[in-house]
């Protein structure tokens, strides 16, 4: 059942990403006559953004492998509504997230190998593997990204952002780890407080809906 879902989902990831990017680009194009990037402040007076989303990823950090999908949420809190640049409509927020993703080794983009799950010490100080994964194994990750988000409010309908920070993760027996988190993304405004949000980067990519508070 899972294999079928994964096969379907991986087939749909790229098209979905493409559609998302096209939608965002279309939004930007439609609003081309409404550039607001040279305004000083963000067009929306908000203090926080809550964004539930779907999560996709490949080649996860640590001992896991393969490609995966899951769900998560990102909360971003505006710390500098005027941003870093004078006369540019930017703003800065701190983002904290919680993402859960299930990875299947068999869907690794570069093929898979099974991994040893358990070693025991043998005679003469040798190490003997006594249990291996099947079909590349499967791995459940919990990510906690903590990032600085730099927003550029390009038009009334479209905004872009870059995010940099750290993503803490937890993987079963391996425990906790941390990797750099780098993302670029965009938002397409649906209403004054609801936006479609796409985020590309590492360790995950995501597509979701943002609610401005």
């Amino acid at each position: 059942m899972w294999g079928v879902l994964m096969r379907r989902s991986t087939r749909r990831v790229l098209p979905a990403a493409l559609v998302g990017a096209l939608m965002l680009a279309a939004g930007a194009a439609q609003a081309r006559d409404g550039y607001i990037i040279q305004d000083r402040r963000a067009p929306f007076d908000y203090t926080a953004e809550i964004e539930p989303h779907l999560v996709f990823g490949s080649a996860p950090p640590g001992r896991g492998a393969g490609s995966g999908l899951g769900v998560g949420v990102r909360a971003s809190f505006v710390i500098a509504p005027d941003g870093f640049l004078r006369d540019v409509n930017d703003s800065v927020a701190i983002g904290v997230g919680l993402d859960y993703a299930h990875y299947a080794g068999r869907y690794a983009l570069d093929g898979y190998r099974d991994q040893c799950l358990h070693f025991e010490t043998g005679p003469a100080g040798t190490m003997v593997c006594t249990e291996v994964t099947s079909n590349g194994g499967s791995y459940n990750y919990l990510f906690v990204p903590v990032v600085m988000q730099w927003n550029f409010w390009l038009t009334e309908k479209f905004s872009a952002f870059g995010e940099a920070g750290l993503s803490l993760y937890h993987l079963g027996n391996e425990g906790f780890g941390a990797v750099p988190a780098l993302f670029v993304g965009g938002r397409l405004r649906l209403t004054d407080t609801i936006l479609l949000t796409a985020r590309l980067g590492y360790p995950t990519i995501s597509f979701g809906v943002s609610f401005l508070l």
Partner: protein
Amino acid sequence: MKASFICAAVIALLQLSGCETGSGSCLTGNTCECSGGTDCYQGCADSDGCNLLCHNMVHCGGVCGDGCDLACHDVNDCSASCGNDCNIDCHNTVSCGAFCGTNCQYDCHDVDRCGVRAGAGSIIQCTNVTTCAVECSGACQLFCKTTENCDLKCANGLPSSTCADGSMRCGAC
């Protein structure tokens, strides 16, 4: 209230994060080969009767049930875990470690360290080895040739004997 709910949710998610267990991806009767790269561990998905081959990498190993052939060469550290009636060949490595059940045929040559834990009826050969350490859980035979340290330990109160043919045995010659 909210904080405790969030804590409970995070703990629940941590319980979900983990690795599944498995038994490998090689099918009975198939020969599955792994070479190149750094690590590769193969297993017999149907448990018995696989042929697992490793060579030219850093760490490699196989896990199998009964009646399997496992071979490993030109690897730093080879590992083999097998049930009964297995043939294991390990050569030109730094270390060869193995667990196998009854009637195991284990050949280890041109290796620094061979360490084998085997069941009754097993025959182990070490040739051109620095250290060959074998533990048998029943009557077994160990042949060492051009081996600096040849050590046989017998479990279950069996005596260790050196026989006229040069072999060491758990149980009588």
